[in-house]
């Protein structure tokens, strides 16, 4: 029980702050609670399936397979799979990181993981459709093309600044968390 309280202390502190806000400014406090409640509903609807898929991925996809698909020498195939995985995903960006952890643990190349996160954040298919309907197809298309190059560039630069040792630490951490 105490352990549970300790783990959720930051969350409880946030709830407390929100309650204080409610007391100081009823309107803002209510708005904040409403937004949080909506988002929590999303967490409990969208995120559990993501974690279930993550568990299934963990047991069914062999490490060797993942290395072939997204590993160190997967090349263009790995980049494409990283983009597709991220683009067909659903859910907020913070849900992408646990998935990234499992992919790392299975032996994906580091830059492919950063591409996956970039795709999840920016080139999700439903979002692109929505963007087209609000901003027009030219806006969407130009941004989409630029993003593909940008995401790839960011991924390679990020991989470049990492030393082998730093990468090993991250792989180890992924192993522990998974």
């Amino acid at each position, binding site marked *: 029980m105490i352990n549970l309280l300790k783990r959720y202390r930051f969350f409880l502190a946030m709830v407390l702050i929100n309650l204080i806000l409610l007391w100081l400014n009823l309107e803002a406090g209510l708005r904040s609670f409403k937004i949080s409640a909506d988002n929590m509903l999303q967490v409990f609807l969208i995120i559990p399936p993501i974690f279930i898929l993550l568990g299934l991925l963990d047991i069914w996809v062999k490490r060797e397979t993942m290395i072939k698909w997204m590993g160190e020498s997967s090349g263009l195939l790995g980049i494409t799979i990283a983009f597709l995985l991220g683009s067909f995903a659903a859910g907020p960006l913070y849900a992408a990181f646990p998935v990234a952890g499992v992919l790392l643990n299975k032996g994906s190349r580091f830059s492919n993981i950063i591409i996956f996160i970039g795709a999840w954040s920016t080139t999700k298919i439903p979002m692109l459709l929505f963007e087209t309907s609000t901003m027009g197809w030219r806006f969407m298309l130009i941004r989409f093309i*630029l993003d593909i190059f940008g995401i790839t560039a960011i991924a390679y630069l*990020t991989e470049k600044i*990492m030393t082998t040792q730093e990468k090993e630490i991250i792989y180890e951490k992924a192993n522990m968390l998974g």
Partner: protein
Amino acid sequence: MTGLLLFISFRKDRKKTIQGLRKSWKAFENILPLFLSIIMIIGLGLAFLSPQVISKWIGEKSGWLGIAAAAFIGSVTLIPGWITFPLAAVLLKSGAGFIQITVFVSTSMMVGVVTIPVEIRYLGRKVAVFRNTLALVFSFIVSLIMWEVLK
């Protein structure tokens, strides 16, 4: 889709599936406190940053300060796309600067300051900070190119 895959998995190997689900639960339970905290922070942030406030900051004739404000709001908050795009479209129609809007759209998707604790937990501090910084710089580049192309 998840249900279908879960069903197939169960048919194929019950024991393995349960083992996988146990892993799912562990991973979920592990990160849940952080997720819930982030949701509360987002709620508190958005309670103050209503669409009206955002419009005022990055609206018409907001200039350089507006671009900075757009990058700031986009980076710090985690606004879902179904709010970002309609808001961006409305702002653009009401005369907001094009660069402000594209910076806002791009940073709100790619840069996540609020979610950085989750990113650090899985990828480490260096990667998280570096990736977000690059994404911020890239958002400016995208905006300039799009402005050149679409103006």
